[in-house]
């Protein structure tokens, strides 16, 4: 790490807000040296509770996050918030509008709000978000809240970087078939029916309850949320959280026979008035205790790191491929060749990848030879 980055790291660890802000910028920009910087952060992390909040646009996420942060502050805890908004697929531009709703904590530097946009990268946002969480954790934030618009797989990946995921479901958000569909609802550790003072709130609560009930009956991973909790089911024969069962595929074969399986509670809130926020916080804390007590937390953290490693590798390979494409004359020409019927994408993928694969196996052979020679 160069001297500037060392200074930045030192300043961050000393609690300078600007250093935290700068570090997150470096992470977002993939600025030179950012990887070493993030590497160094890891040693200082692990103390924050990370909470993911998602839900459809207009569900009231930002307002609830604001009240959440306010309440944590009243309890003497510091808060970091990462608010994610989509960016334009055409220009890359974005209006990051969540900050505007976080008025209760304005002027309080111990609530650090950072807006992030997707910047149109595949999987890149979840890496950047996870790294930004690391920065806030190392800085010393007690609670870190990640807020995303629940609109796609990307959000699912992002909120999975949290220990506890809350999904906001506004009243009247569809019939019970909606709740059967796969996706965002499955990742909830806590359901929040926000705007609970509106018509249809009771019915939405009822539909969620039914969904959870069906989930429990057919025995799929603790009523609809899988991931680490399901993994606890899969590895449930052992209470030792350092066992090797982590190799078990997290999303299969999970059963909910575990007596201490987590059933996501349904909390009703009116974020604009602060109603239900204390209950919500209690449930978040309850889930955290469940994770720790059941030994699931270690599993979850391990799974998260596995995902981080995969994403990082995927990104690197992606970059390699992009430069490979560049050296092959750019993707446009290849695409044109497909359009005019000269070739097809599969043939091109083969052509581009074969030299890469050859290089890899050559390198492998060389490594083996080097090892043999050294013996």
């Amino acid at each position, binding site marked *: 790490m160069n001297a500037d980055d060392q200074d930045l790291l030192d300043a961050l660890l000393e609690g300078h807000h600007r250093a935290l802000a700068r570090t997150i*910028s470096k992470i977002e920009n993939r600025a030179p040296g950012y990887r070493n910087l993030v590497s160094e952060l890891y040693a200082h992390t692990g103390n924050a509770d990370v909470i993911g909040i998602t839900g459809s646009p207009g569900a009231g996420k930002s307002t609830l996050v604001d009240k959440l942060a306010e309440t944590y502050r009243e309890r003497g805890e510091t808060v970091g918030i990462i608010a994610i908004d989509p960016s334009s697929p055409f*220009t890359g531009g974005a209006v990051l509008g969540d*900050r505007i709703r976080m008025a209760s904590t304005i002027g309080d530097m111990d609530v650090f709000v950072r807006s992030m946009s997707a910047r149109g990268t595949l999987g890149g946002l979840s890496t950047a978000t996870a790294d930004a969480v690391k920065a806030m954790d190392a800085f010393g934030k007690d609670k870190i809240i990640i807020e995303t618009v629940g609109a796609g797989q990307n959000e699912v990946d992002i909120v999975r970087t949290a220990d506890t995921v809350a999904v906001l479901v506004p009243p009247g958000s569809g019939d019970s078939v909606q709740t059967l569909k796969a996706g965002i609802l499955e990742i909830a550790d806590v359901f929040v029916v926000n705007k609970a003072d509106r018509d249809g709130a009771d019915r939405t609560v009822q539909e969620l309850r039914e969904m959870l009930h069906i989930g429990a009956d057919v025995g799929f991973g603790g009523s609809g949320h899988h991931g680490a909790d399901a993994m606890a089911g899969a590895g449930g024969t052992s209470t030792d959280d350092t066992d090797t069962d982590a190799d078990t595929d997290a999303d299969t074969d999970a059963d909910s026979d575990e007596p201490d399986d987590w059933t996501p509670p349904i909390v009703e809130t009116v974020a604009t008035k602060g109603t239900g926020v204390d209950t919500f916080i209690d449930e978040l804390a309850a889930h955290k205790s469940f994770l720790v007590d059941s030994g699931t937390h270690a599993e979850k953290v391990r799974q998260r790191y596995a995902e981080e490693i995969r994403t990082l590798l995927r990104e690197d390979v992606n970059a390699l491929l992009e430069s490979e494409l560049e050296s092959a004359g750019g993707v446009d020409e290849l695409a044109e060749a497909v359009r005019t019927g000269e070739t097809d994408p599969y043939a091109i993928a083969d052509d581009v990848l074969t030299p890469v694969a050859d290089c890899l196996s050559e390198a492998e052979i060389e490594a083996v030879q080097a090892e043999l020679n050294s013996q």
Partner: protein
Amino acid sequence: MSSEQDEESQSQPQSHGQGEGRSIRCLVAKVGLDGHDRGAHVISRAFRDAGFEVIYSGLHKAPDDIVQAAVQEDVDVLGISILSGAHDTLVPKIMDGLEEYGAREDTLVLVGGVIPEEDRPELKEEGVAAIFGPGTSIEETIEFVRENAPER
């Protein structure tokens, strides 16, 4: 905007606002009591369409609030929209706040709105890089940001 900063930003290739990596980040701020933010909305939208990342502060913010947002969001550009005539007192407070966090040097500060000619030199002395009065074209503003956003 100091002249050496000008030269520096022109001597380096511009990779701003497109694709992966670096993106110009702007805070569009409404400070003080005026309650009219159509202009701020228009600018925010135009900046978005230019490929910038825009954070809008919302109405009725105190200078401290703006400083907090600018520091936390680590923006390259701070655009302050003022119609109330209170720029003489509010803008210096913001500049002092940025100074306090060491963010004044490399934040491009712009002021938009109704600023009388006689007040302009003082604002420039405070460190405001440009003042865009009524009638300034959006393109001109975007161009200015593209050319002068600090390289970091």
